[in-house]
């Protein structure tokens, strides 16, 4: 007997499709005017949700491997959603990558004719030639397809056996899911690393950082936890978790949010710190264009974004999550979750949007480039893309919940989860 909420899935789907249609119109318009920014909105929107879903995938598998007693109630909601991950890669990333015009605009390295600030073209760039074993278009497209396949297979397996347990009540499924998760965690780690390299790091293809995959993992888990808090809040106020979720569940989610807030800060700080201290130009330029306006020499808009990340995305959630009360009072936890969602968006912007736009006029732009600004009307398009993809994900989620049990009634740990206490 599916919950009444699940009837809304069609509305969400329609809303999502409409929003995405608008975003795509703008994106195509931008592409036809050689402007990458509207196309980037599609990427930002898709990556935002892909990040959330990757986090949920990892959390599903991690709680499986740990056999976590608190998890089953909450994990079932992740399972409903997981299948959206390959779908988003297919409807979000793949069109951008497979349509040559948008690919050339978004991933500069695929456009051999693109002129760099130095005056050379991408095709003649010796750095790109050294990387061409990896950064070549066929391999790139194959990789994007592979990501969808790997995540798709994992999502299908993790869902199938979990749902099968709802009918046949056998513990064997738990063992199988444990095994899939144990293998799936390293597999997903590699896949998400490569996805982050391809879809974010390679947007500025000269730059490289071994930490990048770990950073993306940290961001994904943070986002997934924050979205989980928001989702479970809604679901325990008139949804199918009403009367099931208790203070201890909020506490454990709050603790995990705190832990991954620290972990994210640790990873982001370490990456910045190592590049700052070693001071090697081939790495520092990436941070430099995000701090200083090359024309005026003053702090740019991106510096403001990075300050927002330090104070709004780290200190604010960190300090608010420290007191015990924040982790158990629903409203406070919800507020922190929204703060994290907003901060994660800033982090995604910070990583995806700034790039050197080549300028031939050396009198106005002595460095030969200007950095894409932060404050543009495209931010609204980004938000629309996020809403669009989000609506699709919610539609998939609700539809999943309508077809299957909303809580895993025969999970071996379900009672432990329902009666979970601190």
């Amino acid at each position, binding site marked *: 007997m599916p919950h009444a909420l699940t009837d809304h899935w069609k509305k969400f789907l329609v809303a999502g499709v409409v929003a995405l249609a608008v975003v795509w119109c703008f994106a195509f318009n931008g592409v036809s005017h050689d402007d990458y920014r509207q196309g980037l909105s599609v990427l930002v929107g898709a990556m935002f949700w892909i990040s959330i879903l990757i986090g949920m995938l990892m959390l599903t598998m991690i709680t499986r491997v740990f056999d976590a007693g608190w998890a089953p109630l909450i994990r079932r909601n992740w399972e409903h959603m997981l299948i959206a991950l390959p779908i988003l890669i297919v409807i979000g990333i793949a069109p951008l990558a497979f349509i040559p015009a948008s690919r050339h605009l978004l991933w500069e390295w695929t456009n051999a004719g693109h002129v760099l600030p130095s005056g050379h073209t991408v095709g003649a760039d010796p750095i790109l030639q050294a990387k061409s074993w990896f950064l070549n278009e066929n391999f790139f497209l194959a990789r994007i397809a592979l990501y969808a396949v790997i995540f798709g297979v994992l999502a299908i397996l993790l869902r199938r056996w979990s749902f099968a347990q709802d009918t046949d009540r056998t513990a064997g499924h738990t063992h199988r899911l444990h095994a899939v998760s144990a293998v799936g965690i390293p597999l997903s780690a590699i896949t998400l690393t490569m996805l982050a390299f391809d879809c974010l790091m390679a947007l500025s293809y000269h730059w490289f950082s071994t930490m990048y995959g770990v950073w993306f993992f940290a961001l994904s888990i943070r986002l997934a936890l924050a979205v989980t808090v928001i989702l479970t809040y809604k679901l325990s106020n008139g949804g199918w978790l009403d009367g099931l979720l208790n203070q201890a569940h909020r506490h454990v989610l709050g603790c995990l949010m705190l832990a991954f807030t620290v972990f994210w800060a640790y990873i982001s700080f370490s990456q910045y710190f190592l590049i700052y*201290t070693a001071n090697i130009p081939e790495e520092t330029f990436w941070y430099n264009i995000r701090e200083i306006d090359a024309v005026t020499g003053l702090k740019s808009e991106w510096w403001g974004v990075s300050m927002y990340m330090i104070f709004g995305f780290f200190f604010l959630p960190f300090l608010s999550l420290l007191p015990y009360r924040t982790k158990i009072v629903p409203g406070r936890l919800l507020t922190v979750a929204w703060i994290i969602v907003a901060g994660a968006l800033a982090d995604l912007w910070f990583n995806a949007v700034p790039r050197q736009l080549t300028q031939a006029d050396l009198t106005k732009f002595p460095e030969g480039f200007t950095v894409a600004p932060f404050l543009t009307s495209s931010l609204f398009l980004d938000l629309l893309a996020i809403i669009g993809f989000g609506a699709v994900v919610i539609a998939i989620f609700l539809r999943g919940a309508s077809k299957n049990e909303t809580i895993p009634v025969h999970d071996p740990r379900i009672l432990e989860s329902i009666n979970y206490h601190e």
Partner: protein
Amino acid sequence: MNERNERIHGVACTFRQVSDVFHAAEQVRDAGWKNWDVHTPFPIHGMDQAMGLPRSPVPRLTLLGGITGFITGCLLTWYMNSYDYPLIVGGKPYWSVIFPFPVIYECTILFAAFGTFFGQFIFNRLPHHHHPLFDLPQFSRVSDDTFMIVLEARDPQFHLDESRNFLLSLGGQEITVIRD
């Protein structure tokens, strides 16, 4: 208080089962006692609520220690590398919050740990090597497998005979008067 009461620390009784001492503690709490304690070989989950204890104040000292450490770290690095002995090294500024961050961070942790560690000692009034309880023969089993409730004489509700009967009604065994 009469002279006899002055030399009495309190009365004690023992329990053999966790659930027994737990429910007994709830009754003592409900009877409104202030100066009493449950001595156990290990912390019993939920006993704080059963005794009606507030949350431990140790975190306050941790926070105080952490803030002190952070400020100490900042001042230390600023004074030594920027004020008293400024040197240009590695193209870094004389002082910024970034390069000495590891040091500031470690100072924060160190002082917060001191705050916590000594906080535990201060709030538990330790070290306290001499205590009337140690004279009780059955107290040596409290660190092994026995649970003990002690009602202290300084509680306004304390009355020797009534308190002993109260402990008896709770199911306590080996009811003993602790002499100071």
